[in-house]
């Protein structure tokens, strides 16, 4: 079995495991896993930029938080709003923001790109943090869950944690498939080429700035989708969702999991989340543990967990190959 097929079957097994998880879990872990999967989508969207296009964004949380705020703003306090309205509105708003921020940001590269994305995210953060009408530093509540109906019938009840869990799981799989498709398309080839050598790609006649902007908008919108899911599942949005700690966290998830793999960042979300859950019982100084953990990963595991998995899969494939050899 080849390496990629080993990984594919492992992924299928993981999805099956996640699908069965609610039968074995209490509500606390169900909601925790929902949160991990949302972060997984968020981190996966950033992987499109970092791992494939070579754009290190340090302001990705802006889109995550913005979607939540948009939902909170458009949702009326007393009556529910249809998901078919609120989701497109939120995504369109985030896509527009990504277009504007991206338009400025992709003119720069390398270290400047890191900083300008950070600065834009901070700008968004301060705007919401200081706007009293939008809850200031306390954030906003989303009082009613979006309704999902077809022809007047309620088909999904987003008030039920198990339903939300499955909806998020389905979204996670859908986002993974969507991004894989994007990356297999000609568009994906071009952005990968940009990461490897932007000058050469431009010399081949591609307007690289436009491709980078498109990747930025796709990634930003998907981060917004994750933010929408987070806001729906928790019912609250705060400036913390936009903060640079959030941007830093999602960057950590991508590296910890392994960039340039799409599934790696999801692994990262689960790994760091579970570590947090374990450490929380022992000490209140989670940040200290997280900080040391991040430093150790950077120093000793630059390809992340996915790199480790791929290495093991390669070794497994080699072993299988060797086992077959004497027969031939």
């Amino acid at each position, binding site marked *: 079995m080849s390496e990629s097929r080993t990984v594919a079957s492992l992924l299928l097994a993981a999805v099956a495991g996640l699908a069965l998880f609610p039968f074995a879990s209490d509500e606390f872990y169900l909601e925790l896993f929902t949160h991990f999967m949302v972060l997984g989508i968020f981190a996966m969207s950033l992987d499109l930029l*970092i791992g494939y296009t070579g754009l*290190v964004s*340090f302001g990705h949380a802006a889109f995550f938080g913005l979607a939540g705020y948009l939902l909170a703003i458009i949702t009326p306090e007393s009556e529910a709003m249809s998901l078919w309205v609120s989701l497109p509105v939120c995504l369109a708003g985030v896509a527009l923001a990504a277009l504007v921020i991206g338009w*400025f940001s992709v*003119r*720069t590269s*390398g*270290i*400047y790109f*890191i*900083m*300008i994305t*950070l*600065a*834009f995210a*901070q*700008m968004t953060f*301060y*705007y919401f943090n*200081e706007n009293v009408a939008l809850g200031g530093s306390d954030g906003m509540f989303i009082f009613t869950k979006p309704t999902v109906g077809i022809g007047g019938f309620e088909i999904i009840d987003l008030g039920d944690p198990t339903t939300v869990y499955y909806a998020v799981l389905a979204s996670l799989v859908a986002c993974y498939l969507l991004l894989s498709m994007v990356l297999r398309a000609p568009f994906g080839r071009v952005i990968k080429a940009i990461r490897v050598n932007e000058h050469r790609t431009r010399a081949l006649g591609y307007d690289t700035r436009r491709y980078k902007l498109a990747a930025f908008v796709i990634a930003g919108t998907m981060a917004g989708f994750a933010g929408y899911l987070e806001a729906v599942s928790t019912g609250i949005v705060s400036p913390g969702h936009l903060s*640079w700690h959030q941007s*830093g966290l999602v*960057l*950590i998830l991508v*590296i910890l999991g392994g960039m340039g793999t799409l599934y790696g960042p999801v692994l990262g979300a689960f790994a760091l989340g579970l570590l947090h859950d374990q450490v929380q019982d022992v000490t209140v*100084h989670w*940040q*200290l543990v*997280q*900080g*040391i*953990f*991040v*430093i150790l*990963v*950077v*120093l000793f595991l*630059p390809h992340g967990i996915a790199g480790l998995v791929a290495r093991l899969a390669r070794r497994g494939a080699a072993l299988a190959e060797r086992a077959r050899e004497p027969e031939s």
Partner: protein
Amino acid sequence: MDISLFLVLALNGIQYGFLLFLVASGLTLVFGIMGIINLAHGAFYMLGAYTVYWLVGYTDNLFVAIVLGLVIMLAFGYLLERSAISFLYKRDHLYQVLLTYGLILVLDEMQRIFWGTDFYSVPVPQILSASVPLTETQDYPVYRLFISVMCMAVAAGLYLLIGRTRLGMMIRAGASNREMAQVLGVDIGRVFAIVFSIGVALAAFSGMIGAPVSSVYPGMGEQILIVSFVVVVIGGIGSVKGAFVGAMLIGLADTFGQVLLPDFASVVVYAVMAVVLLWRPQGLFGRA
């Protein structure tokens, strides 16, 4: 706006600009010479402020506390470079960002463990506690002038150190060609460790000298870090001259913005940056 208000705002803006320059110069120096992007710079600023608060408690003298604190921070910076930063020279910026981000988390938590979440104030020393009358109603505290003078002194010292000393020569040689300098017998590892510890000391010194004005509180490093990044990006990363111009621009924009556009005060700084980058993506004095 009457003229005296304008004067006070301008003075405050310039003084803030000087302080920003002091922080940003360390950041831009470490990047320009070593190619390291250091997110923990703000944490060193915070650490400086807390260290001086702690030492003032023992020595009862701000100046002695600053000198002692600088020695501690220089040693801290040196050890940090040797134990962690030195592994990052050949790696992508991404890993530098992450490692120094991890460092922020660690240092922030350390600060919380040792000093808790309270706000502390450091008293202005007796001899600098006077005010200069500007007009009949407006005063200007001498300590703020002292900050500006100290910042100028440090900037001059830095200029002399890099441009006129043997160490400075080694630093410049290492910045332009690491391998060649090494072949010629310069211990580049040590030189870079010294540069990094100078960067740490610059951030810490800004925190120390600013402590009596800004007070000492958790999260103070974050705020200054982001602003000094803006300064460095505006000026052009790696350019000390750019850091100076950027710092003045941001210092004045922020001070006047808070009075003229109070609703958008915190956004003004970032808007200035966006405009500058639109005009010159590599910053005012950056190399393309």
